[in-house]
């Protein structure tokens, strides 16, 4: 899932995008995403993707490092592209561009904004329970991924993974998952206890650092509006 890499980029980046406010970045993302989804021609999509790529440069995000994440939607969209290409190859390419553009836009947001900030903005309009589940999931993900990694390592060291013995592998996987799930659930019982001790009342409060909007923030929002308008109005060249 590359969460570690993305956290690293969003936490340690120091570009103008990293420094600007989370709300304005989310607004910009929403505008670009909407534009990409409603665009119907190749020129506009090319333009939108170019804008996103420029923003990657502005954000000093090495596109080579995370760009491959946009490849998966690209590959999955190939299938739909083939279907749409009955209406001509352009239709097919549009499908692929939309997929890649949308994915890149999401990646831009999460590589320039630490996830804690994204969630603290979510918490403004999402039910707190959902935000809490997000936060818990995030923490648990690492703990469990580590556990799973260690389990797989021991299985490998003990010679439990045999490339062509399907049945043996299945048995091993089931017993590994069983161990993992039991351990995780017992862990969650311990976590619940300690959370209670620490005063947990069904809410995980997080820091809302809503800095006063800077000039960059207004520019970002404005850019979003311009991009959407530019997508909507008919261009006659």
């Amino acid at each position, binding site marked *: 899932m590359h969460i*570690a890499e993305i*956290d690293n980029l969003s*936490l340690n980046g120091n570009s103008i995008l990293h420094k600007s406010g989370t709300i304005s970045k989310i607004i910009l993302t929403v505008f670009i995403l909407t534009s990409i989804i409603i665009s119907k021609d190749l020129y506009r999509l090319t333009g939108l993707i170019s804008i996103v790529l420029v923003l990657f440069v502005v954000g000093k995000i090495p596109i080579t490092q995370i760009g491959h994440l946009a490849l998966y939607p690209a590959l999955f969209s190939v299938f739909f592209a083939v279907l749409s290409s009955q209406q001509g190859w352009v239709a097919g390419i549009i499908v692929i561009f939309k997929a890649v553009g949308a994915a890149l836009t999401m990646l831009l947001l999460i590589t320039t904004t*630490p*996830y*804690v900030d994204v*969630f603290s903005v979510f918490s403004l309009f999402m039910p707190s329970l959902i935000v809490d589940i997000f*936060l818990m999931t*995030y*923490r648990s993900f*690492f*703990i469990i991924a580590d556990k799973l990694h260690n389990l797989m390592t021991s299985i490998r060291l003990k010679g439990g993974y045999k490339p062509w013995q399907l049945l043996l592998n299945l048995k091993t996987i089931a017993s590994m998952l069983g161990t993992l799930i039991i351990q995780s659930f017992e*862990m969650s019982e*311990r*976590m619940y*206890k*300690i*959370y*209670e*001790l*620490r*005063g*947990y*009342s069904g*809410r*995980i*409060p*997080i*820091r809302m650092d809503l800095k006063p909007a800077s000039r960059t923030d207004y520019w970002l929002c404005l850019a979003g509006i311009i991009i959407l308008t530019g997508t909507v109005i008919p261009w006659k060249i």
Partner: protein
Amino acid sequence: MVVPGRNHYTNRDGDTMENLIEVECLKHVYPDKTEVSICGLHFTAKEGERVTILGPNGAGKTTLLYHILGLLKPVEGKVSVMGMEPFNQFNELRKHVGVVFQNVDEQIIGPSVYDDIAFTPRSEGYSKEQVDQMTRDISHRLGIEQLLNKIPHYLSSGQKKKVALAGALVMSPKLLILDEPFDSLDSKSKTEMIGILNEITKEHGTTIITTTHDINIVPYIADTIYILNNGSIVAKGNPQEVFSQSELLNDANLETPILSELFTRLRNRGFEVNIPYTLDDAEQNILKIIEKP
């Protein structure tokens, strides 16, 4: 006799002392029917006392701590902390207690170090400024200010321990409970942490209950030692008293601290020497033997 709000009892010297914690012959049964009993001597801890619980694996040390914290309901026996029954008055008691369990990963709630340390004061409804003040104060104290904006997952094990300790100390609890806090720390981090804990008891009169398997550090963190073995508390006393009972230690799978072992051997050879528990004492004691003859 139990007086609401405070427990009084008469100790060996006849004074009436206030006990923060009292545990009498506790029995617990886990869901899978494992029975744990903690009988024998009474377990007590006074304000500002540093207590260490020793015992073999599976003796029930963690179970005892869980009962003191009110996380488990005793099947038999009595637990009282600050005059309250922990299990029934959990929500009141909780506010006066800080905890660091062995696996700190499971203890960290906040998505950032700051959020984690600020968790309890925020949940208790302190104002934003107060929360900020408290969080920064304790971070400064533990020397982890530079970590405040980090994501806990990416910290080293030693750093995570400190963050957990900060989260436990942020409300200045009257009682601090630490289950094997020194495990997997390197020597320097261990010494640092011992220093911090001792400072805190001195300044705030915090009662500290620890468990550990590292017997050599016990004299530095304990005023009183309890030994749990085979379902009962078999010994209680200060390090000198407890560590001189080597048979008892042996029964409980414990070794004697290296220094006390060395000096016991010298004694057995006929030298009149006191058993030391810290390096300084040991040095002095050796000098005494050498100078005597």
